[in-house]
């Protein structure tokens, strides 16, 4: 296992997530893109804040192993 491999590992998953694909890795789990659209949120001090949209990466462990 080399550094190149690790880099490529991260990059590949990232690219697929950006493309809204989910990536399944046997024995590890599944990476999934989650989109959070913009939303309003009320802060503790009563201010109403519009949060920007956001993408996040979700990981679900492969529990079979």
């Amino acid at each position, binding site marked *: 296992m080399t550094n190149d*491999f690790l*880099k490529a590992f*991260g990059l590949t998953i990232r690219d*697929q997530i950006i493309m809204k694909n989910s990536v399944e890795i046997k024995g590890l789990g599944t990476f999934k893109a989650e989109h959070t659209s913009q939303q*309003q949120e*009320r802060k503790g001090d009563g201010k109403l804040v*519009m949060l*920007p949209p956001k993408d996040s990466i979700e*990981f679900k462990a492969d529990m079979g192993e």
Partner: protein
Amino acid sequence: MLIDNEKFIALLADNSGIEKEKVEKYLEELISEMKASFDEGEGYEVEGFGIFSKLGSNILFIPSDELETEINYKYVGMEPIELPGGAQQQEPEAPEDEDENPIQGILDGGKTEETEEYEDPFAELFNEAEEHEKAIQEQAEKGDLSEEEIEAVVEEEIEREDTEEVIPEEPEQEEEPEEALEDTLKDIFGSDESEEESEEAEPEPEQKEESAPGPENWGIDAHKEEEQEGAFSGLLGDAEEEPELIDEDDIFATEDEIASEENVSEPEDEVSQEETVSEEENDEEIDFSALGDDDSEQDFDDPFDELIEEEDFVPVVTNVSSGKASKKEASEEKTEEDDSKTEKKSRTLKSPRDRKQSSPVFLYMILALILLGGTGYLLAYFGVVNIEGITPSSASTQIAQNSPPVTQPESTPPQTSEEEEQTVKEVPEVETSSESAVIETEENNGSYSNPESEITEEETPRNQENDIAPLVADEKAPGDGGIISPVNIQAEAEVYGLNGTATEAGNNGYTIVLYTLSRKSGADAQFEKLSKEGFRVIIKEKPSQEFGALYRVSIGQFESLADAAVAAEKVDSGILGNYIITKI
């Protein structure tokens, strides 16, 4: 789209350039390494990607900051925005996120809305009070409203009063009519305490409407003030108004009592007039109220009454409310309000008038300034006063002529003196402009053939086009004093010619100027180079106002301009480049 293990390995192989089998092997290694670290109770970090860690039986993945930002690249620069006015905008918060919305739902559905509803109106009250104070100050300072604006404002205000006073009464009437019916007698006598408490919340919705942000706020503040006074007095005065609704019923029920009460109450002018004038109207209204006990009808009555009231049909309103002294006070307040409005009108009307009166003064001042400017310009133009840039050049050139010679005529005297020695008559005439020179040379030297003159005519425009030409022409230095280059003193040498060495006698003629250089070294280099080519090279130092000293490199000495032009035609254009022919 799901990238399964196979596809992932293929992609990974592509991206890394590692063979597929090796990739599979590496991946297994990676996973086993992870598990090993998990077993040791540690997380496993893939650099630039994130941290895997085991929590219980689950594996958590915490993406690194880089990964997060890269994923969110398209949303870069979007930051949370604070929204104005919270409470009403909560509804559009459609639950989109599974994680956060439950919390929001709790917040929204629960206490926050209520508390905010209670909080906000008060805040607005305070804000408005401040706004009004400011508005009053501003108006006092500025008095900026024009007549039209005021009229518009007043109209708006009337509309507002209609709408606003109608709307807030609805809740009152929903709540209170029964109680009010019970307490009518008390109300008639003005014991409002019970209602005051319930009504405390009422002015607030009014002000909510008023506080709606808009361009109106600016102009209407002053009138808001009145309304607010009304609102505050509404804590007392509304209570007085409400019984009015009840009163009608009561009037319907017990006309006599009320009549007696009216008589008992202070016999003011209004009351007496109203009673006499509009008893019929009163009856009609009673009929209305009798037909339908609906509060809504009464609601509709009120605005009309107020409209009428505004139009000096005061008796109707006061008649309705004349059932008690307090109502009279209310009407008095209203009339006072009207008075104050009219006063305000008159007051505010004054200011624009003042302005209008003041505007001619400005006009006069502007006119005076223009006149002053014009006269000044004329004076300067005719030379009475000397102002740079305006006074015509004739005046200034007289001064300028003392400065170093720029114009050609000045350069002539020394040349002519020399030329007289040489007894060449045409030269001083020729010198001024090349074209005239050509013509004159043709006249004087009849020997020249037409084609040659054509050539010279062709060349002379070229000379004019030449960039250096004007510069050099202006710089025609007086005399030959500036010539640095060596001169052949031998008598045998030809006086004029393109080749050989320059002769002193030839310096009264013309030369083909190739360069005008700012450095002497460059001029010397050119001298050497051209001398090797066999040319008669003349370097002349010319004082320049702009560049200091300039060194003019020219070849040949010619008796006339035409000679120079003919010679120039024969010289290799590679050497000549852009040349001009001028006097030495």
